[in-house]
């Protein structure tokens, strides 16, 4: 995959993810409708490939106003990954030489790998995760399960222990998927399934679309490095 193809694919997927979020905000207060209405217009320009790189620059500038509006990300980690992708794409587009464009876009791919590896590391060093207790806590009392029926999963410690180790193993092993194109694609399919499960069980739909948008960056980086 060429740098141009990968950045373009990431731009379009990210714009679609931001559009999906933006539509959700159009039912919110008036000031949100203005901010996200403007962002949606810029996303449409980005998808159309019009006046590049200015839609990206506009989106990056608007992201600061949105951060200010909510005094931080609206939806935690998913918004942070969206911001990272947006700023990496913007800086890559503004760089005067190809090596610098590669550095900016490569940073995004590297962060995607780190997002799984570090998440796995902080879990495996935590005894509560290794015993399944932490995942039990997630189902029992955290704010995330989307229904009361899901909370009953907390009564299945063996299932949660297996799920905990499956998540830890997948996250820690993800960097190994970079060994070949086939293993990377398999790793990304597993990762997308993981995000899909989180979207269904915990309502984290923004993670699913945002992480998917960044996958071209790691496909390109693997091609570039190996």
């Amino acid at each position, binding site marked *: 995959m060429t740098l141009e193809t990968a950045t373009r694919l990431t731009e379009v997927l990210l714009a679609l993810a931001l559009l*999906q*979020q933006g*539509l*959700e*905000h159009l*039912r*919110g*207060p008036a000031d949100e409708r203005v901010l996200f209405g403007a962002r949606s217009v810029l996303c449409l320009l980005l998808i159309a490939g019009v006046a590049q790189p200015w839609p990206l620059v506009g989106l990056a500038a608007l*992201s*600061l*106003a949105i*951060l*200010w509006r*909510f*005094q*931080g*990300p*609206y*939806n*935690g*980690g998913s*918004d*942070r*990954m969206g*911001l*990272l992708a947006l*700023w990496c794409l913007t800086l890559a587009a503004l760089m005067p030489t190809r090596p610098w464009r590669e550095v900016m876009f490569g940073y995004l791919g590297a*962060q995607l790998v*780190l*997002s799984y*590896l*570090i*998440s796995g590391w*902080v*879990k495996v060093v*935590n005894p*509560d995760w290794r015993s399944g207790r*932490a995942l039990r*806590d*997630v189902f*029992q*009392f*955290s*704010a995330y*399960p*989307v*229904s*009361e*029926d*899901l909370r009953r999963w907390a009564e299945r410690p063996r299932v949660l222990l297996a799920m905990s180790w499956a998540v830890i193993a997948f996250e820690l092993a993800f960097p190994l998927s970079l060994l070949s194109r086939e293993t990377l694609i398999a790793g990304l399919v597993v990762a997308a399934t993981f995000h*899909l499960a989180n*979207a*269904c069980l915990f*309502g984290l*739909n*923004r993670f*699913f*679309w945002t992480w998917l948008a960044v996958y071209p960056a790691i496909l390109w980086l693997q091609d570039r490095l190996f």
Partner: protein
Amino acid sequence: MLRPLALLLPALIPSWRFFDVIAPSPRIEYALLPSADASADWREFRPRPQRVSVATMAGRLAWNPRWNETLFLVSCAERLVDAPSAHSENEIFRRVAAGLGPGVHEPWLALRLLFVARDGEALVREVLFEASPRRLSDLR
């Protein structure tokens, strides 16, 4: 200008420590009052449904504004306890008031934050924040 850049920095240099510790979890409770000093009958704001169908879960992949707003309110509640600010309190008041809909007759809205945590094998609940009641007419 510096504040938005400071807010952007954790996104550009992320920590990626998802779910490293399962912290006490906030529940937003509200009460509608006939006067600011009336006693409160607390109710949970947006309690989760008993069951969500697979079809609904699939639909929420594309359209999930209510849940995402609820998660934002959870962030505001956590911020309010960790680093109190008028912004977080205002957001919770305004969004709870908007979420109550039009058929509310009592003029005052009270809010409190109840945190649920595990202590050994038991779940414990503790009120860590209670706001002064506000007039609903000022919030809409």
